[in-house]
């Protein structure tokens, strides 16, 4: 029996060399270990043997079967691998061909700047509020300390829509007046109000009759000018880099007192002097101040108990400085080749 088995196995080892395809594998399986395969057949006449012999033969045949199965299995694996490799090779593509471009849109450059402001200020507890662009004179001027006929009013700069009652807001400050008057003078306020405003300016590279302001207001207890400076420093660092330094210069605005002009250290030359900062090392970025007594009073707050600060940035100016844009009309006559670049995250 042993000889017979060895002979079958060596025959198998010979045969297996010619196995090339999956069909060959099926065939060779059938020939040796299939239902009537050569090895399976060895068990057929077992009843002719004594129980001891049966046991011995059974063992020999089982070993042989395992060996054969392993031999064929190895071969099968080899062939499958070859077939797979061939298939993979065929499926190989030119990965250098162009990608299918996924449709994505970009924000307006102004919206991108506004989102930066929103991120910073919302994290500090400021709500983002909007108001009507067609505004009442009362909110746009009167409550901000500019009664009708006041010489400091820019009547000629304002687009009036209906007599002297309704106008296209000339700044976003009326939103502040609206929010303040809605609080009955007994709730703190923390808001920013990015939005459109309009003035009678002739459009050119640096002027636009329509523009975007980002104003902010806090009304609370014991708010100081230095709090304004710290707050402005936070947003300017976000916009123009961590090493940005802020500076205040005295100024005068109707709605604030004291009023300041806000400068940042030049992000381009780091103070050495360049074109952008006109060799001063500093760039003016907006106006701000401590909320004026009259504005607080007019909007229902007791100025002896409450105080606050307000600031205003021009979204266009911030974007022009930050991204090196020279013409304000870029924001309103959009060339998509310029705009689509802004579908991108930035380091913060």
């Amino acid at each position, binding site marked *: 029996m042993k000889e017979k088995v060895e002979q079958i196995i060596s025959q198998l080892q010979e045969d297996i060399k010619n196995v090339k395809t999956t069909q060959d594998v099926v065939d060779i399986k059938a020939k040796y270990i299939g239902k009537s395969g050569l090895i399976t057949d060895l068990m057929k006449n077992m009843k002719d043997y004594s129980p001891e012999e049966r046991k011995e033969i059974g063992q020999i045949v089982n070993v042989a079967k395992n060996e054969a199965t392993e031999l064929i299995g190895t071969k099968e694996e080899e062939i499958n691998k070859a077939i797979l490799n061939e298939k993979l090779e065929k499926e190989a593509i030119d990965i250098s*061909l162009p*990608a*299918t*471009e*996924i449709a*994505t*849109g970009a*924000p307006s450059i*102004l*919206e991108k700047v506004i989102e930066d402001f*929103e991120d910073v200020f919302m994290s*500090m*507890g400021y*709500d*983002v*509020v*909007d108001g009507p*662009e*067609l505004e009442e004179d009362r909110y746009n001027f009167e409550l901000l300390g500019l009664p*009708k006929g*006041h*010489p*400091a009013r820019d009547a000629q700069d304002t*687009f*009036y*829509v*209906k007599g002297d009652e309704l106008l296209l807001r000339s700044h976003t400050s009326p939103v502040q007046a609206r929010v303040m008057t809605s609080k009955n003078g007994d709730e*703190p306020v*923390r808001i920013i109000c990015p939005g*459109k405003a*309009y003035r009678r300016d002739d459009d050119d590279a640096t002027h636009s009759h*329509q523009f975007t302001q980002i104003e902010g207001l*806090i009304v*609370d207890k*014991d*708010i*100081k*000018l*230095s*709090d304004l*400076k*710290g707050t402005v*420093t936070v947003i300017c660092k976000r916009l123009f880099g961590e090493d940005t330094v*802020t*500076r205040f210069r*005295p*100024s*005068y*605005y*109707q709605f604030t007192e004291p*009023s*300041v002009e806000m400068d940042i250290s030049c992000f381009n030359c780091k103070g050495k002097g360049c074109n952008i900062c006109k060799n001063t090392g500093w760039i003016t970025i907006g106006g701000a101040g*401590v909320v004026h*007594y009259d504005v607080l009073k007019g909007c229902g707050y007791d100025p002896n108990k409450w*105080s606050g600060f307000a600031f205003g940035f021009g979204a266009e100016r911030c974007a022009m400085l930050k991204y090196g844009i020279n013409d304000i009309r870029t924001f*309103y006559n*959009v*060339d998509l080749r310029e705009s*689509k670049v802004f*579908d991108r995250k930035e380091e913060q």
Partner: protein
Amino acid sequence: MISLNWVKDYIDLEGEDLVELADKVTKAGINVEGVVTNHINNLVVGEVLECVDHPDSDHLHVCKVNVGKETVQIVCGAPNVRAGLKVIVALPGAVLPGDFEIKAGKIRGEESNGMICALFELGLEEKTEETYNKGIEELPEDAPVGMDAMEYLGCDDTLYELDVHKHRNNDCYYHIGFAHEIGTVLGKKVTYPEAKYDEVKDDVNNYVELKVETDRCPFYLGKMVRNVKIGESPEWIKKRIIAAGMRPINNVVDISNFVMLEYGQPTHFFDADKLGKTVLVRDAYADEKLVTLDEVERTLSPADIVITDGNVPTCIAGVMGGMNTEVDENTKNIFIEAAIFDAFSITKTSNRLNLKSEASRRYGKGLNYEYTIAAMDRCCALLQEYASGEVLSGTVLHDTVDKTEKTIDVTTEDLNGVLGMHMTNEDVEKQLDKLDFPYELNGDTFHITIPRRRLDVEPNKADLAEEIGRLYGYNNLEDTLPVVGTKRGVYVGDVALRKSISKRLRQLGLTEVRTYTLVPEDVANSFNYDNKEVLALPNPMSSDKGYLRLSLLPSLIQTYEYNKARKVENINIYEIAKTYDKDYVEDHKVAMLISGTYMANAVNQVNVKADFYLLKGIIENLLKYLGFKNRYDFQKVEVKELHPGVSASIMIDRKPVGIIGRVHPSMMKDNIYVAELSMTALYNLKTKPLKFKEASKYPEIKKDVAFVVPNELTNAEIEAVIKHAGGRLLDNIDIFDIYRDIEPGKKSMAYNLTFKDDTRTLSDEEVMQVFNNVIKEVESKLDAKLRG
């Protein structure tokens, strides 16, 4: 323009670098925008030693000119050049106004090493025919050769161009006021000019009776000067007036202007003989007329204040005098008015009449009565000295000015509380001294009096903190943050919705644009699919910005054209903006435009083109994202600007919220698709809160069915019947095939129906029952047949 030579009359600026000073003033809050010095290098007094005709010209001369250190040859074209004349010579290197640099060179072959100048060439006179014909300036014989010419002329001045914030423009636009600001910055005192004159013993009250019948004239001071001689002003007054940007006219007018530029107080001179005996100040009557000094007849209104002779107006107060009382070359006797009128009224009147002058601007900013009196005295003194006038004794006066002093008690702690600084009492004292604000320190409390010249400073902590803080220096400010409660910032009102829509549309491949709200009339009326009335600006800047748009779509189409002209392809854009109609009603809108290819890969045969269904998909995606699943549908609609067969109204809960369609081919031949939604409408609709819904564990059963229907029958009509007939078990309907013209006028529509119950497994029998019902209903309710 502020002349620093002039300012020096009131404050000692010896040794100050005026450019540095401008910087200091700016840092303290008054913005000096430009420092102009009219000093010109290499400009000297010269003497023409020899003058011969140019050999190659009929009008040029070749001159030998002694310029001090040397004698140079200069070619000169002026007709009045001659030997022996003292002249102004610009030598090579001199840069004359207009950036005109003098260089050595040859003129028609003759060497010329400079230029002999006329005053207008130095910017000291206007260039007119008259000054041009005068030729070169002829200096007096004793002019010292070689001396700096500007210095010799006394014109060597430094001018500050100010950009003063409105707050301070009442006290920084006159020379004494500005001297005070410099004094504040430098900590120096201001000296007021002398105004001494003799009075003849004849009282003005013998000649003029003053009546004030309006409460809009709190202060009116009048004096009379007799026997003035009209003539030229002295050089120093002329120079001052030119430096400040005005033109000298004659001694009397110049004195009035000079005093205004000195004290900020305008005065008006009447010809006393034309004026009569009465000066009555009152509100104008409606339609009252006055011919003003510019020879225009003005129609007045009760909003205006007038000076009258008791009957007819002689002057529009604060704005312009009348012809009937004009000072002319024959005038002998002058009545001087120095007054304060209601600032708002003056501004209003000068705006309405479009008559703005240096004077009306100053009245419009408010005045300090102390300077009104000082200005009157100064006028009298100057008229006596430079117009030989005799000042009559006495004054006519109306005075209702509240003279209560503005005082405030404040502590250093109060000021530090506003500023967040750490000043000491000594620091505060130092700044108050610089400001020249009188004060007493009692314990820790400063009792401060605010001088009247500072009309802008009110007696409150903040105002004082500002004045003291700006001088102490904002460089002393630390960065602190408000100590306030912690809370989360939120988007208020429809801002949150706007942000959601904006971000989603970007994810869906559209790029945000911003365009102008103000448009021309035809654009404003385009895409007016809601039939609203357009809001026009009563006073537009120009007709192309005269109207408020009702729809953003025309602007998006414009953006499309702008980009197409620049060869940009595949324009997919959106804008969110507010619109307003004639009733001032706001509608916040979201507009979209798609064109060209949305997504493509030519090599890989991917090509998603912009079409109606893509835009419909974007809108459905957006509406589902916003929580409107199963609540929207699309209805055919007619919009003038859209393709009649490719347009729809977008409905939510059966109410229109917007439109979608292809832009009408007669308007745009390109295939462009637009949609516009009313964000205001979306904002006013409620949506259900987001909830988890477990996926069904039971199998679904799918069945296909196709109907042959007329070509005109829409998918929506068929689906509606299927949906109704399918009832609760019909979970989904998908159209998967359309076969047009399967027979004349008919098409085949094939649907895949999904049946499902979330609570159990459905039996084939019950599904078949529903399915058969669907077929029966479609066939009976519509002109439809099951496709065999």
